């Protein structure tokens, strides 16, 4: 194997047969290159869409009230449903429901601090909301249980509100007027990946007390613990049943309460992605097979072309094994180097695309309205890349071995007559 003379012989052969070497190498390099691009693109698409889902908890579910559309138990349709604090307790008891946060809508709320003022969205919530929605705290803290229990007049404001009202001065600890009621700023937050941070968060209990909410809730944000689409649907159904019994509406009434199940959506999208992944693999394996067939074909031709040379070598004293190893080592060397080149070019191109995507996305995230790109990190698992290359090398070796063995075992005289 490490016979220097043998390698000199192989290198001499390669040097004198540039076209043949190039064709063999090219088909291998091209196969690997295409595979890398294909798998890389698939990964990029998959990564991109997955990251878009990461904004909120993937197992989030939102429930809001509406009007009944189906007459039920002698009551006409068109009846408005109103949630109260008890409803949240009911929903919490449904098995599979994790944390939850109620919310009371306040309509337009005017925020003012000294001479600055503006209208922003107020979200009244419980501390659990931070586990459901995508909220990042930049300064201070989020609403906590004590705020809720003591009905403290505190508020967490979005970065846009802070900038508008406070400019560069410190906001934490200052009091701002919300609809002319003073609230203490306890935190500054933003939504990662979003360009609008005009939301403010205050304790649900405080809002209910100050802004005539009594014990009303407008919607509920919960997390659910489900692994499959079926489980998630069951939880959804139970929520409808429980609330339907309480508010006397048909559980099948889609209008009475609104329900958005993100997990369901996520699972469905992931299913599509599984299908896309399978599709990409099928194409990838197809490409690989095409590469294997190409290499095999070239090896067959190479051996055929060298039949006479094999005969000559045998006549002057080459043993069959030395002939086979000469041909095989040559083909393995060519496919290995070419496979490596294809691997480097393919992954290199995908990394380059990745680099430019990061570059162009970096300085101007705000130009992209709210959403991330659907293409992210289009790179290939290096293990897959290497195994694909090895597969091609082995296939090339086998494809070369069979005809080489046959050629080495035919009588030299027959090989020599082969014109």
């Amino acid at each position: 194997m490490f016979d220097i003379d043998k390698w000199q012989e192989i290198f001499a052969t390669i040097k004198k047969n540039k076209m043949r070497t190039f064709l063999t190498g090219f088909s291998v390099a091209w196969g690997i290159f295409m595979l890398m691009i294909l798998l890389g693109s698939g990964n990029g698409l998959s990564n991109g869409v997955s990251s878009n889902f990461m904004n909120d908890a993937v197992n989030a579910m939102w429930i809001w009230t509406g009007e009944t559309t189906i007459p039920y138990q002698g009551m006409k349709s068109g009846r408005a449903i109103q949630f109260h604090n008890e409803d949240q307790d009911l929903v919490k008891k449904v098995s599979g429901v994790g944390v939850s946060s109620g919310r009371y809508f306040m309509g337009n709320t005017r925020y003012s601090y000294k001479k600055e003022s503006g209208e922003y969205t107020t979200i009244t919530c419980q501390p659990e909301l931070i586990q459901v929605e995508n909220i990042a705290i930049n300064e201070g803290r989020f609403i906590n249980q004590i705020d809720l229990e003591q009905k403290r007049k505190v508020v967490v404001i979005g970065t846009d509100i802070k900038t508008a009202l406070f400019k560069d001065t410190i906001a934490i600890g200052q009091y701002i007027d919300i609809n002319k009621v003073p609230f203490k700023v306890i935190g500054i937050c933003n939504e990662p990946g979003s360009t609008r941070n005009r939301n403010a968060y205050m304790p649900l209990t405080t809002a209910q007390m100050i802004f005539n909410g009594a014990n009303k809730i407008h919607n509920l944000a919960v997390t659910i613990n489900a692994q499959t689409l079926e489980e998630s649907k069951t939880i959804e159904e139970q929520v409808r049943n429980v609330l339907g019994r309480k508010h006397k509406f048909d559980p099948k009434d889609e209008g009475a309460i609104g329900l958005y199940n993100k997990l369901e959506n996520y699972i469905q999208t992931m299913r599509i992605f599984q299908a896309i992944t399978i599709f990409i693999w099928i194409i990838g394996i197809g490409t690989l097979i095409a590469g294997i067939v190409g290499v095999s074909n070239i090896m067959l031709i190479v051996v055929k072309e060298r039949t006479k040379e094999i005969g000559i070598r045998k006549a002057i004293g080459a043993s069959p094994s030395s002939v086979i190893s000469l041909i095989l080592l040559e083909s393995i060397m060519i496919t290995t180097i070419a496979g490596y080149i294809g691997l480097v070019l393919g992954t290199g191109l995908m990394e380059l695309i990745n680099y430019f995507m990061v570059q162009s996305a970096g300085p101007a995230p705000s130009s992209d309205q709210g959403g991330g790109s659907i293409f992210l990190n289009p790179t290939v698992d290096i293990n897959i890349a290497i195994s694909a290359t090895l597969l091609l090398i082995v296939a090339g070796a086998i494809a070369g071995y069979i005809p080489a063995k046959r050629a080495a075992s035919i009588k030299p005289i027959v090989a020599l007559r082969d014109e």
Partner: protein
Amino acid sequence: MIKLNNIHKSYEMGNNSLHVLKGIDLEIEQGDFVSIMGSSGSGKSTLLNILGMLDNYDKGSYHLAGNLIQNMSEKKSAKLRNDMVGFVFQSFNLISFKNAMENVALPLYYKGIPRKKRNLIAMEYLEKMGLKEWANHMPNEMSGGQKQRVAIARALISNPKIILADEPTGALDSATSYEVMEILKDVNDSGITVIIVTHEHDIAALTNQIIRLKDGLIHEIIRNGELKEFKKNLIRGLEIA
């Protein structure tokens, strides 16, 4: 040197079996210069292949320099070919992507001689053939006679006991043919047994012994003394024609 005893060889052709050699008894002494003649299909090439250990025989026995050549592994027969036999072919059979020197040196590669040393030896042999200036030329840049001389140098480089030549002049014009025969004669004079297969009477007439094959059997053997008679007959035959 070479002793054949009742050699049989047949080829399987689908369901039919083609009986090519039907019992050849032959003895060739060290230093002989022999030609094998016969019409096509008479088995002369098959005989040469068996002599050169390129092919097996079915029945009988073949002794080469005292060794029984029978049912040898490919590896062993390759080694023996490398040590004992040099081949010269009608179509030269040089490796097209190697230059003259590398072609000549190739048998020494299979003997395990280092590159530098074998190239040096190859140059010596090329010089003997008067082809020193052509050492770095590729086969397609040389004439037929030159190529055959390279092939003879290659056959000689491993110091064989026997040179087997299958129609060595078949692809050459008559002047070059005689040149090649002259070289083979010199080779023979150095003590190496030379066996050529040919269908040309004038070429065969340059050897010391002619073995005529007919239908897989030795039809006649014409030795030194009788050779003059053979030549006379040949000339008479030509005149009639």
